[in-house]
């Protein structure tokens, strides 16, 4: 597309303007501290690339403009408009234990992408490739991660997907959502919104109206996906929101392991990431979805950072299907998400393993929902919350057993670890059981890294910061075990850097 011709209302701005503003010396003016802070969030750089963005604001015109930019068919445009109209009737929910500054939805740009649109990975702007290199996700042929196919989403668009050909050979479709809408409209139409309906909640409705890109995965009947699939989400442009939409379908007997990673530059403004992820597992299918979320968390005074408001839900549609969510949440100013599983098929299994860390002024209200509909359905929840600094960490989980779910079982383990005296940990378990035969167990603990533990480590020669990392790592071990190896290592490192300065 030629941006000059097509975009009378499309603003073109160099993405580093916001960086210039950010670089103004701040009143604190302590270079050493600044350096330390900058080091702490390694992914905080900005890629100096020309981007084109829709002007800020939200209206039917904007929704249509997004759909048009993406070259979508009419049904998709109408789907978005329906969602938008529904969203207008909704109010932002207030029930979370979060302090959220009011969001001005008219101040956000809903679409931003690098100006140059590559036709294939080979044509991708070297600066973009360099960006992903720096983030440890090389995309080019020579260096791409062995055994992991990557879809790279930069602001509102996918800039490339690796291993597509190899995957296609076994029938696996792995592409950006935009591409899937064009190439596999029948699959998208069949499944999109079938797990998270357009009007599900305020942010899901907003996402349905303006979603930009995300990944589409389809594993056909009987196929075990031969490699890990992953999407790397990067927010780069300022004053934009990112509206990820991901859809994963595993047909009968299929299985797949999918990973997502997320980072953003350091900015003084809050940026919105409102995602919707839908998983569908048919008979005997298995989906494992892992997240390492490292959105920019804001500085130690709570300035800037991503608002991560996400609806993630899996549908165990067929008997004996299985969906496992594993998340390591270290980033974002505010995290608000409940990866859930609807256990519809008999004997289906849902699991949720989570580590959520809040430091400085970060807030997290996260957990899961396990909805037992089928017979002999099983769910397992392991949640590890870590609060440091003035961080506030809330576990909120629902275990619901419907009338027909005889033989349903749930086990929930919910542990909180506090570091320091100014942070908070909160637990809100909701349990609704309508079948008398169900077995639902809930265990919860709250502990502190004690002075005794710290002194014990130090008296053996281990420095205070290493000691804290070690204790936290031990606390999280149960969840890290669920992550694919290389991501477990990354998650561990992330916790270490996220906790720097937690012991003062």
């Amino acid at each position, binding site marked *: 597309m030629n941006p000059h011709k097509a975009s009378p209302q499309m603003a073109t701005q160099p993405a580093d303007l916001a960086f210039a503003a950010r670089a103004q010396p701040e009143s604190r003016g302590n270079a050493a501290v600044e350096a330390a802070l900058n080091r702490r969030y390694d992914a905080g750089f900005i890629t100096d690339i020309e981007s084109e963005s829709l002007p800020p604001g939200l209206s039917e015109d904007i929704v249509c403009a997004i759909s048009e930019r993406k070259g979508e068919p009419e049904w998709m445009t109408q789907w978005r408009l329906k969602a938008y109209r529904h969203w207008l009737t909704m109010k932002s929910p207030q029930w979370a234990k979060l302090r959220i500054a009011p969001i001005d939805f008219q101040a956000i740009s809903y679409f931003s992408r690098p100006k140059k649109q590559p036709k294939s990975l080979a044509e991708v702007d070297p600066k973009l490739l360099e960006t992903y290199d720096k983030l440890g996700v090389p995309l080019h042929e020579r260096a791409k991660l062995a055994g992991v196919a990557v879809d790279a989403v930069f602001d509102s668009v996918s800039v490339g997907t690796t291993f597509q050909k190899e995957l296609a050979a076994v029938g696996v479709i792995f592409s950006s959502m935009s591409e899937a809408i064009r190439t596999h409209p029948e699959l998208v139409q069949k499944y999109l919104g079938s797990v998270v309906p357009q009007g599900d909640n305020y942010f899901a409705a907003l996402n349905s109206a303006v979603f930009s890109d995300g990944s589409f995965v389809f594993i056909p009947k009987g196929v075990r996906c031969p490699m890990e699939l992953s999407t790397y989400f990067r927010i780069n442009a300022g004053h934009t929101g990112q509206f990820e939409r991901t859809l994963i379908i595993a047909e009968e007997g299929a299985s797949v392991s999918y990973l997502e990673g997320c980072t953003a530059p350091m900015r003084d403004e809050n940026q919105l990431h409102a995602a919707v992820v839908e998983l569908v597992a048919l008979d005997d299918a298995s989906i494992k979805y892992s997240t390492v979320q490292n959105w920019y968390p804001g500085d130690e005074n709570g300035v800037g950072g991503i608002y991560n408001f996400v609806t993630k839900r899996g549908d165990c549609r067929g008997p004996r299907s299985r969906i496992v969510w594993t998340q390591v949440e270290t980033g974002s100013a505010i995290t608000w998400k409940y990866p859930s599983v609807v256990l519809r098929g008999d004997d289906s299994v849902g699991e949720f393993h989570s580590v959520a860390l809040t430091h400085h002024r970060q807030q997290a209200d996260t957990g899961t929902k396990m909805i037992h509909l089928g017979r002999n359905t099983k769910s397992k929840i392991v949640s590890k919350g870590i609060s440091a600094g003035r961080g506030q960490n809330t576990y909120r989980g629902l275990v619901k057993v419907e009338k027909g779910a005889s033989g349903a079982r749930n086990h929930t383990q919910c542990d909180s670890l506090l570091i320091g005296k100014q942070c908070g940990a909160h637990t809100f378990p909701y349990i609704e059981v309508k079948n008398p035969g169900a077995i639902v167990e809930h265990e919860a603990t709250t502990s502190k890294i004690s002075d005794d533990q710290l002194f014990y*480590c130090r*008296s053996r020669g281990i420095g205070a910061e290493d000691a804290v990392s070690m204790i936290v*790592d031990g606390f999280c071990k149960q969840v890290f075990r669920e992550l694919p190896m290389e991501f477990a290592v990354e998650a561990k490192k992330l916790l270490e850097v996220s906790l720097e300065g937690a012991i003062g």
Partner: protein
Amino acid sequence: MLKIENLHVRVAGKEILKGLSLDVQAGQVHAIMGPNGAGKSTLGNVLAGREGYEVTAGSVSYDGQDLLALEPEQRAAAGVFLAFQYPVEIPGVNNTYFLRTAFNAQRKARGEPELDSMQFLKRVREKLAVLHLKDELLHRAVNEGFSGGEKKRNEIFQLALLEPRLAILDETDSGLDIDALKMVADGVNAMRDPARAFIVVTHYQRLLDYIVPDVVHVLADGRIVESGDASLAHKLEEHGYAWVAQRRVAGAA
């Protein structure tokens, strides 16, 4: 090796050590005995650098350097080791991993090369054999779910592995049955060396039947009130701590 002079220490505003002096030479084993509340554990904690212990007067010199100026991990690297009276549990942290991290952190601080996991494991197995400990200890989380005796034995295992130059045993004998006590004593005796010193803090004389000290001190009301050879421990056992207090009153009169 260790010279403590006129040490005064406050804990939570209360003076616990009131002018303690002690001189420990390399190669010696010193036993510190005394009634409850005399300040025995305070001494160990101050030497290892625990927070909350305020030194109001006096000095501690270790190998000629000011020990009190060092952070706990620096003291460890310099060769000071405290076997805890109540070893701490660290859930989820593998014991071997913990030990290797500690071991290599100390070596790094001293400018020595770190050991890789194979080299370290070899060393661990040697020490396990000497102490008659089971492998299983290594695979568990640090002290998690250990019995009282296992915790104490784990402390002695750490001692053997880290090879400190000054080891302080804080009531390591408390809560041990006779077999475990012997094992702990064997472990310590095997490590006695002309270059290494021990301070054995204990309430009872029993441990000193197995670890025979060079010097025995009686700590009462925050200072050393009596010192002597191993026979002093037997006298104490016979007469009780009241005997020391009486002698002090008599001496003062």
